């Protein structure tokens, strides 16, 4: 019985993670045919990725996702800290639920809903024009990299709030009381106490946002400028052109990036600490 309990997650991970990932890598080195692919070994798909503009596109989407992570942290993590420190224990989960509610709405709708807010004749410009703050509509907030970053932050902010809150739950409340009793300034408490203790949760939230920023093709498609792409859209476009090995190679590269990030994160922060409240 005991062994079976350990086997279950191993079987699950093998079936739904390791096997698909292995197949993705195998297919990425297959030969492309007119409509599909055939067994073989070629690194052409990788060459096609690393020695073309696709790498540049991939790197720029990584850069934009990184900015989104930082912005989401700046806005989202203080919320998690505030809820944990200031909201009564009994109400904390309900308050956090409010931040997760946007997840109940389809991602497509959430992203589409941003357009009438940010566009030339949208809510933001109309209000600012009405107030006399601007005389010409601001066009830099939509169909630009900034538009994509705004979309990523607004779409994925709950990830950092939720993951941050989970991490903060692992921090006993008396630690804050001790800091207060000792008269520690707020910024020292944040940097020396909260950040190290909540690091695994922050990292997990950051990875969620980063990976979604890389993979959700809708964001650059709807909010980005001419030809804006991320890794997800590169793969989608490869499939549209019936270049399946290339799509597999992009997926494999994305997965490798994610695994690399998780490995670094685990070495640095011990990600199992996220589950310490459950323990």
């Amino acid at each position, binding site marked *: 019985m005991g062994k079976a309990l350990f086997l279950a997650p191993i079987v699950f991970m093998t079936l739904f993670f390791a096997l698909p990932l292995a197949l993705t890598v195998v297919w990425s080195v297959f030969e492309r045919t*007119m*409509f*599909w692919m055939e067994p073989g070994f070629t690194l052409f798909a990788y060459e*096609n990725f690393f020695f*073309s*503009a*696709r790498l*540049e*596109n991939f790197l*720029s989407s990584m850069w934009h996702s990184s900015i989104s992570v930082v912005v989401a942290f700046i806005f989202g993590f203080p919320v998690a800290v505030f809820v944990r420190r200031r909201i009564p224990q009994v109400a904390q989960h309900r308050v956090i639920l409010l931040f997760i509610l946007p997840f109940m709405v389809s991602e497509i709708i959430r992203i*589409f809903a941003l*357009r*009438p807010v940010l*566009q*030339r*004749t*949208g809510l933001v410009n109309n209000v600012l024009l009405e107030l006399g703050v601007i005389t010409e509509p601001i*066009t830099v907030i*939509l*169909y630009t990299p900034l538009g994509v970053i705004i979309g990523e932050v607004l779409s994925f902010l709950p990830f950092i709030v939720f993951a941050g809150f989970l991490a903060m739950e692992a921090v006993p409340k008396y630690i804050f009381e001790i800091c207060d009793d000792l008269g520690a300034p707020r910024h020292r408490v944040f940097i020396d106490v909260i950040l190290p203790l909540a690091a695994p949760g922050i990292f997990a939230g950051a990875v969620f946002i980063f990976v979604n920023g890389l993979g959700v093709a809708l964001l650059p*498609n*709807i909010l*980005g*400028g*001419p*030809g*804006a*792409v991320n890794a997800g859209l*590169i793969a989608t*476009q*490869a*499939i*549209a*052109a*019936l*270049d399946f090995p290339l799509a597999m190679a992009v997926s494999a590269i994305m997965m490798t990036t994610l695994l690399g990030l998780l490995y670094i994160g685990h070495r640095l922060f011990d990600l199992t600490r996220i589950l310490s409240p459950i323990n």
Partner: protein
Amino acid sequence: MKQFEFNRRMLLKSATAMAAVGAAGSFGLSGAQAAGPLKLWTIGIAKVGAKDWSAMSAQAGIEIHYNAKSARADEAIQKMVVGDGSKLYDAMSDNGGGMEDALASQGAVVELDTSKIPNWKNILPIYNPGGAAADTIRHKGKIVAVPYISNADSLAYNYDKIGAELTSWEALFDSQFKGRAAMQNDFGPTLTNTAIYLKQSGKQDIDNPSDMNPGEVKGVCQFLIAQKKKGQFRTFWDGFGNGLNLLASEEVLVSSCWEPIQIVAAKKSKMDIRYGTMKEGHQTWNNCFMLTKGGLARGQADAFYKLMNVYLSTWFGARTLATFGFGPQMQGVNEYVAANPKDFDASLIAARLAGKADRYKVKGNSWQNVFPTHIRDYQDWWARVQAA
């Protein structure tokens, strides 16, 4: 299939066909009743007459089970050639002049017996043997597809804001519309339309804008990269809703797009958004229905032919033209509209047909190519345009 350019001959035939007199008759179709509804895999705009498929179903006298399909070629290939689409669908639609060859060559769709489609006699003459579009519905000389809509895609522009007729793709690259221009986020139509412009304006030597060699693709993309770096484009649109929103919200004033986008954008914004005739030419295309191998095996051929008879009727042709601006594939639409004045705005229909005839007349038109010979070069250079 061979690539070909829409030339004056085709234009004249097309214009003549549209203007020709001939009403579609209604025919009782015989044949065994197929078991179950006809499982149709097609795009939403393939229906007219009602918001759902009830009107199409009533006209054909069959039950239709609609399955939504995108316009992407890869989706059809994946389902019908690689996947189990033939088990799922009895009939499907896709682009003519490429997809019918791809699907028929893989045995996914079957040869058709046009004698079972009474309205076939009304089909535009361009589809008859030797006609300019004959190849777009045939595979190895055998008919495998029934065309139901076509168009010559062009430039939509906001006449209210611009105050002038636009007749050249030059407008897309004109500095007066810097940051207010958009093209489609798809290398196929965008590179073809740009190639048509560059070729016909003498800016680049291009043999066939629909099937460029690597050097030609490079030249076209370098031109687009330069335009993009100048800030000419607001964005590249993807999907009907995006294209529509860009025009209706005044985000852009000029956009290369599908005609239904222009029609709906004009209605939605209540602005005078027009669809021009470009002197350099347009990308032309049609969309066709095909009977799948599975559909034939399941005894759905008769139901398929009944539906195809509707698609080649003036009842459908007039409505798809009025609703979406798509070109009807049969003769006699003007007469049908004249005979049913309560159902149609005759002047609007006449204007749309005239507009199409004008666009089809342009010498530089070029047929849409789903699978260009050097598709890898198209892909790679399009990635560079995106990265620029």
